[in-house]
């Protein structure tokens, strides 16, 4: 008779142990994450031109900014104004570029396009809404006047910055 009561007590103890609450804690910390979704590729539609535009056979870089808390960060994207790697060039290169808002995780982010500030090769967006914003970057390099770009590998750098306000 004693044994069953011991088993019952042990069972009760184990039941009470398994009924302990497992607490899961978490907090949403303000932060910005820069995701380079697509690195981009230059197309060579003409002998003197390199372009990331799809109509020119290129691939536009796509950068995603994720912000956990609204209104804490500015996104600043600078399009290239020079090659980081290229063959020796004897003539000038004319650079044009632009940054536009692509997909958004919140419809209110469509205002980013109208509120953007552009200076030199830099475009600044005020990330006033928490969530993800995809930015499409275009870059076009035109060489000299009707001169063909020398053969070789060309690379340039798009700078994506997330600056706390």
């Amino acid at each position, binding site marked *: 008779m004693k044994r069953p009561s011991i088993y019952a007590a042990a069972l009760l103890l184990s039941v009470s142990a398994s009924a302990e609450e497992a607490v899961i804690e978490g907090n949403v910390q303000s932060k910005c994450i*820069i995701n380079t979704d697509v*690195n981009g590729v230059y197309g060579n539609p003409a002998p003197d031109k390199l372009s*990331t535009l799809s109509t020119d056979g290129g691939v536009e*870089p796509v950068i995603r900014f994720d912000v956990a808390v609204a209104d804490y960060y500015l996104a600043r994207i600078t399009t290239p104004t020079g090659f980081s790697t290229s063959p020796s060039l004897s003539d000038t290169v004319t650079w044009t570029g632009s940054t536009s808002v692509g997909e958004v995780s919140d419809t209110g982010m469509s205002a980013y396009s109208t509120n953007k500030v552009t200076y030199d090769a830099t475009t600044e967006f005020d990330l006033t809404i928490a969530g993800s914003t995809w930015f499409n970057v275009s870059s076009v390099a035109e060489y000299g006047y009707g001169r063909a770009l020398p053969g070789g590998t*060309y690379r340039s*750098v*798009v*700078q*994506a910055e997330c600056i*706390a306000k």
Partner: protein
Amino acid sequence: MRILLCIVALLGISLPAVAHEMTPTYPTFSPSYVNGLASTKMSVFNARDDVDFYEVAVYNPVWEPVPFAATDKILHVPFAEKKSFDVYVRDEDIARAVYICTLSKLRSDKPSNAIISSKICSRTDRAEFR
């Protein structure tokens, strides 16, 4: 449903992991164990498989460099790892050390020809976080 789950799983596997993250957004300086120096602890997470190194920099409100010390000014942060680092500034520089930034260092042998450099800056002068 299973097919859908498989597609989602495959998409997750095939999507490149390419994120750069730094916390906290608003760090505060506190006295360090070295007399005359204040320090703050930062953390960088590297989910960019094309980047292994990040450069630390400190700037004033008009983006001029401010002298600082850190264990490493170029941090080696392997892919999918998080690294904490301390930034030290002189007591007299605390007021002008406004931005603490990490900048991805790109390899020249990268296959893609338009490369994205990422830079995240935290801000130390937000009074409400002091």
